């Protein structure tokens, strides 16, 4: 069987769980799928998941699992896995999963394959495709030393709406004992750094800059291009890390997720952390000196060349009419 570990916070299901369920259904090849919901009050999330075509939804109700800590989640997942004996354990590749799944794998001494974008074959002999070298290469890997093999699915790689529904899975409560003394992290409430002054999610057009812009002195070039296109300026993570543009203009897994009508990636290579934040854009333009940059894989239009020549030429062209 396949065990999917759902992700919820404050009783709200993380949508990426549906993508993972879709991946599990593709991988199953006849194996039954069970979905576990970890947390303290998980009834409504469990009901939502029970609409999927899966065999069973397992819920926990343990105060030690709220709020999330890696130690408690690893303990709970380990108990579930040891009693259910799955062939695979699937999770969405979220920041939370990245925090506790390696701990779980280390404790079980079982393989963990992260950030999976595709599955070839199904059943016990499947292989998993995952990016390597910043997305320049795709590796096909096989877990060694399972079962179970723990697999995390890249956000956006599997389609949530492809998850088969129509099930009326039974919901079973699982009793877990987690010794609070084994939970070493004491989390405080999540917070946002600053109110977001710009809501890039509302922008129709975005011009985003990356490392290719080279220095802070060149940011005005991107701003000028944005103005000519009637677009907002945004950036990939390194630009905001350097303080060249404010953090609130960062696109990607640690920043905002956008899907504008037009997204112009200026000197952005397209690390996966950036792509997840913008690949839903309707039209994507990539301008980069490196013809092999992964950004071209998601682009509708690509220009390989020097952005310091091409951006001014586009501005000139737009100003003509």
């Amino acid at each position, binding site marked *: 069987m396949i065990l999917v570990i759902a992700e919820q916070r404050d009783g709200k299901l993380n949508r990426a769980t549906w993508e993972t369920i879709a991946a599990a259904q593709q991988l199953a090849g006849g194996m039954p799928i069970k979905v576990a919901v970890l947390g303290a009050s998980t009834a409504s999330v469990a009901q939502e998941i029970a609409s999927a075509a899966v065999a069973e939804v397992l819920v926990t109700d343990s105060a030690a699992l709220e709020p999330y800590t890696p130690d408690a989640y690893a303990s709970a997942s380990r108990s579930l896995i040891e009693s259910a004996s799955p062939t695979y354990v699937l999770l969405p590749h979220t*920041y939370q999963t*990245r925090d506790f799944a390696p701990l779980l794998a*280390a404790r079980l001494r079982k393989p963990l394959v992260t950030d999976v974008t595709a599955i070839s074959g199904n059943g016990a002999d499947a292989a998993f495709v995952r990016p390597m070298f910043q997305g320049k290469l795709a590796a096909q890997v096989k877990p060694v030393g399972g079962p179970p093999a723990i697999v995390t699915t890249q956000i956006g790689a599997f389609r949530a709406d492809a998850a088969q529904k129509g099930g009326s899975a039974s919901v079973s409560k699982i009793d877990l004992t987690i010794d609070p003394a084994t939970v070493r992290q004491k989390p405080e409430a999540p917070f946002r750094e600053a109110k977001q002054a710009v809501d890039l999610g509302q922008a129709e057009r975005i011009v985003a800059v990356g490392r290719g812009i080279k220095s802070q002195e060149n940011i005005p070039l991107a701003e000028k291009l944005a103005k000519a296109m009637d677009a907002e300026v945004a950036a990939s993570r390194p630009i905001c890390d350097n303080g060249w543009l404010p953090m609130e203009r960062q696109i990607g897994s640690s920043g905002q997720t956008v899907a504008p009508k037009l997204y112009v990636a200026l000197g952005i*290579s397209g690390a996966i952390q950036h792509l997840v934040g913008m690949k839903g854009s309707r039209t994507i333009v990539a301008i980069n000196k490196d013809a092999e940059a992964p950004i071209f894989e998601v682009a509708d239009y690509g220009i390989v060349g020097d952005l310091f020549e091409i951006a001014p030429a586009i501005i000139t062209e737009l100003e003509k009419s």
Partner: protein
Amino acid sequence: MKIAVCIKQVPTREWQPRLNDSKTWIREQDVSYEMNEPDAYALEEALRLREKHSGEVVVCSAGPARVQAVIREALARGADRAIHVEHDSLGAADAFVVAEALAAAMKDEKFDLVLTGLQSDDQGHGQTGVILAERLGIPSSTIIMDVQIEGSALRVKRELEGGWFQWIAMPLPALLTIQSGINQLRYATLKGIMAAKKKEIRKAALPDGLQAAQQIVGLAVPTRSKQTHMIDGSAAEAAKELVRRLREEARAL
């Protein structure tokens, strides 16, 4: 306080991938290497913590002889000494093998704090730090953007998705995986480079019998999920054609 920083040597960002004959790994003879970027931030954070709390910073790396280059660079930036688990097979090793190799070499040092980058820019498993913490028997927290230490109490700012953060308290010793951008990197000075030549690099052997948890059965340039229209010509020609297509074809302008 005694701080360890684990660093990995990875291909440079400019490197164009070429595959070996069996298409299961890269052609290593073509590669130029650099320090994994998140690890550089972890090193910087360790140096800042040492400046504040005194103590020593020990750089730990598992890899072939070539990784000496990034170890020397870390020493030049200010780390006090280094531990190098040296073996040719470690260049392509997975997270389990690297973590076990580091754990064996680091165990007896009894570090107060271990820092790693959140993931490597080569294989990118994002697992080594957390597995290492478990093998050292210490708690971990990941994707960290601020580190505060008072006595034996540790408080860290963990990045969540979509611009959210969270403070987490934890006892020392502990392991943290550091997010890029936590600080501003320093570069080595000439004085630092000279001083690094005299600093100790302890060689450690790779323990026998470590098992990889996954096998790469194939490597390839990813297939395009989208039909990309590549626009050629001079800058002016390309700009003109792009603007035309954006207006007439995509109706995005």
